[in-house]
């Protein structure tokens, strides 16, 4: 994987100019995700109402990949139900593992499809999936029965 296909304009834009990086005053759920091997440390905040993500944001530090991945994820999940969010996370993680074959499934990820080839750079996979793992933990804590 070349550097230019990793550090694309889209990824750099999300990593540096991040309107999703802020604090949610009325968050109903907060979850911290930490990658002990490289120090990426993010906290995801969700405002849920009737099982829907009304608003979402994040704070913390990390590399360009982790920050961009988190930001794209937040754009993607706003307005979705918990079930939809869980499905999207599964598709994203499946894409990273190269387990998703249907194009139409990948299309559901919108901009986050930019990380499709990150598995060619094994050292950076953890950076790309941190936010998504953190999100699924947050959702599971909100809905312990599901």
């Amino acid at each position, binding site marked *: 994987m070349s*550097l230019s296909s990793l550090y694309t304009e889209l990824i750099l*834009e999300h990593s*540096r100019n991040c309107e999703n990086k802020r604090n949610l005053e009325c968050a109903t759920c907060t979850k911290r995700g930490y990658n002990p091997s*490289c*120090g990426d440390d993010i906290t995801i905040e969700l405002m849920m109402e009737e099982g829907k993500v009304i608003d979402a944001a994040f704070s913390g*530090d*990390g590399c360009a990949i982790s920050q961009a991945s988190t930001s794209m994820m937040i754009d993607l999940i706003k307005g979705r139900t918990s079930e939809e969010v869980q499905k999207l996370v599964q598709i994203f993680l499946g894409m990273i593992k190269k387990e998703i074959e249907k194009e139409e499934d990948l299309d559901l990820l919108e901009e986050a499809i930019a990380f499709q080839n990150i598995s060619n750079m094994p*050292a950076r996979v953890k*950076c790309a999936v941190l936010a998504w793992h953190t999100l699924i933990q947050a959702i599971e804590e909100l809905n312990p029965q599901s």
Partner: protein
Amino acid sequence: MLDIETIRSEFPALGQNVNGKPLVYLDNAATTQMPVGVLEAVRNYKERFNGNPHRGSHYLSVKATMLLEEARTKVAKFINSPSTKEVVFTKNATEALNLVAYSYGLSSIQSGDEIVICISEHHSNLVPWQRVAGLKGATLRYLYLTEEYEIDLERAKQIINEKTAVLAIAVMSNALGTIYPIEKIVDYAHNQGAVVVIDGAQSVPHLKTDVQKLNADFFVFSGHKLFAPMGIGVLYGKESFLKDMPPFLMGGEMVEYVTEQETSFNELPHKFEAGTPNVEGAVGLGAAIDYLSEIGWEKITEHEKSLTKYALEKLSEVQYLKIIGSKNLEKRGPVISFTLEGCHPHDISTIVDMDGIALRAGHHCAQPLMNYLQLPSTSRVSFSLYNTKEEIDILVESLSKVRGWLGYES
């Protein structure tokens, strides 16, 4: 002067290309590459002498025993240990530190005692002491640094006091490269009646080690940072401590008589070496020590100092780059941490990797230090006797392109 070309030709790993570029290996503080002498010694052992030492009277077992003990003798001489009884083979420096913490720490430290370490300790010399302090009701205290990344000796005199049961400290910081005035600090601690544990993992490859001159009660290091294979480490301990300490791991080899309900333990150092040891690792470590002794410390230190000086100068010229560590060559080793404004170390590492450069990004197993310095992480380059100034030029050239890749205009 070192004959660098000859030295480099003795390290097969250095001759390869990475991402289409000649490898520039600058992660020696994490692990070093192995010279042919070490690789051949290990292979020779495995092909001709592989047997279980101290357990049989057949030829191979006897040979393996001899080679294991020969390696111990080399290690003892290398660190100037008065006897081989005081040299225990472990898996690595981490296991050696755990051995001291669990065996000595748990049996000697009392509630109300204090354990003192430096804020820059590697997790391996921090977490075990945290655990001992928690289990025994002792307090873990820290030596902090000055703005020059040196230990604040005036404050240290207050922190190391009559309550200090153990002082555990690295000679050289793996995250900052600082070499601490260890003999002075050891003196303070001994004068207060404390036992001193010294982590030599970073210093052993760069500075001549003399455990008697250091007056270390315990001293540990890893083989794989010293041109030997992974999986072999050393604990040196004064016999006066080791003989009364309970064993760390139980099993074969460390016993004398075993009955259904009771066991008496083997003599030193075998009391601390349960199970089949890593003979090939010990043989490799012995060969690495031979290799270093042949070159000689004077030449190694001179070369590494000139690399460090050159790198500090060149890195200081890189725009937006900040060196995190002392700039005083007398107080630092060939390990340099830095930040590059606006660039996360993990991105830096990925980008320079494309130019074949291996450097380390992260918190360097020293999270409390990073919190103390208020840095999430740093990038780190670390040199060894086989690195060159040309490699530093390649590094600097590559680093100067990093901000461009990350979308900055300069």
